[in-house]
């Protein structure tokens, strides 16, 4: 996958940088960062067409689950693949995230290779 635009939604600068660092494995990837759900919605309505969203759950202002729900309700955005990356590792959290419309659910601490594989699979469809 080349020239993909990724939106990384994460309140922790360390995690944002770590995810962005992993995404650099995709050739010519453009990484747009957002600090919470509201910021993410702003970036989604911006000029860049987003190919994939990676979002945390626990964030101030608007959490990741609300963001997933709003994206899936939006006619223009509903087909964008979403990956939830979170510390919440319980099965019910995973089921909830996927039921709201996330395409994949990854628990922290993340393995870069696992993240890359998941993204490649989602963007290959």
């Amino acid at each position, binding site marked *: 996958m080349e020239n993909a635009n990724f939106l990384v939604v994460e309140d*922790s*600068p*360390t*995690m944002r*940088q*770590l995810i962005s*660092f*992993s995404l650099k494995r995709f050739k010519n990837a453009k990484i747009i960062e957002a600090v919470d759900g509201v910021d993410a919605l702003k970036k989604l309505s911006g000029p860049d067409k987003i190919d994939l969203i990676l979002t945390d759950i626990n964030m101030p202002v608007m959490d990741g689950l609300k963001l997933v729900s709003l994206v899936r309700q939006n006619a223009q955005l509903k087909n964008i693949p979403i990956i939830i990356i979170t*510390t919440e*590792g*319980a099965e019910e959290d995973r089921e909830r995230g996927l039921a709201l419309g996330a395409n994949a659910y990854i*628990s*922290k*601490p993340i*393995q*870069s*290779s696992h993240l890359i594989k998941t993204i490649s699979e989602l963007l290959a469809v």
Partner: protein
Amino acid sequence: MTEESKAEKFLELFNKGKEFTEELLRENQRLRYRLASAETEQKAGGSSEEVQKLRDQITHLTEENKRIHERFSAIEEENKDFANRYIEIEEQNNNLANLYVASYQLHSTLDFREVIQIVQEIVINLIGAEAFAILLLDEKTNELKTIASEGEDVMPNIDQISIRLGDGVMGQVARTGESYYINQDIDADSGSITIDKPLAAVPLKIKEHVIGLIAIYKLLQQKDSFSAVDYELFSLLAAHAATAIFSSKLYSQSERKLNTIQSFLDLLTTTS
């Protein structure tokens, strides 16, 4: 000689000729038979040579097949080794990326609270801790005290730890500078993990000078135990965290001193 005796003689001669001819025909028959037998034998003799040749070829090919099979097995083993090595390198790559990002973040600021916030983020997101405390050593009182923590619900009073240098597990970690880990299968809820006896305690040290420690009481639900690389990563992160905490502390102290001096100078200038 009478006509009768001549005829008898001729008949006798004729009979001998007949017998001789018959004898020649039989001999001819015998020779034909021998020739045919010889030809068969010769043919038979030729086939066994070919069979031998083929047998040699089969032996040669069997040996070659065996060699190829052995080489295939060896390559398969090498392949497995490469696959395992690839996984190891992927893990190392992941850890190096974690370490790079963590150290970059830790040294990106000189603000003490920001550094502590980054250390907390690292311990949660990279180490995978749910309940932990960051303790700093007060060199005047020789006491380790919590300056930041997570997981009050898992470990009550985690935010108020106070331990004398050398006392208990954590006091010893701070005194010796040696990390402490216990069996990861022990759960924080089982009672084996107490405020004084964490799952892991890693010193924050600059060279041999311990300035504090990070104590982990519970890992995230999805993380069963520390992996082999976690120990190394944790120690390296702790070393970076220590220098970042120490420099930010020094910076804030110097900032305060500078402000005091500046205020004093301002006062002098004003009064003069």
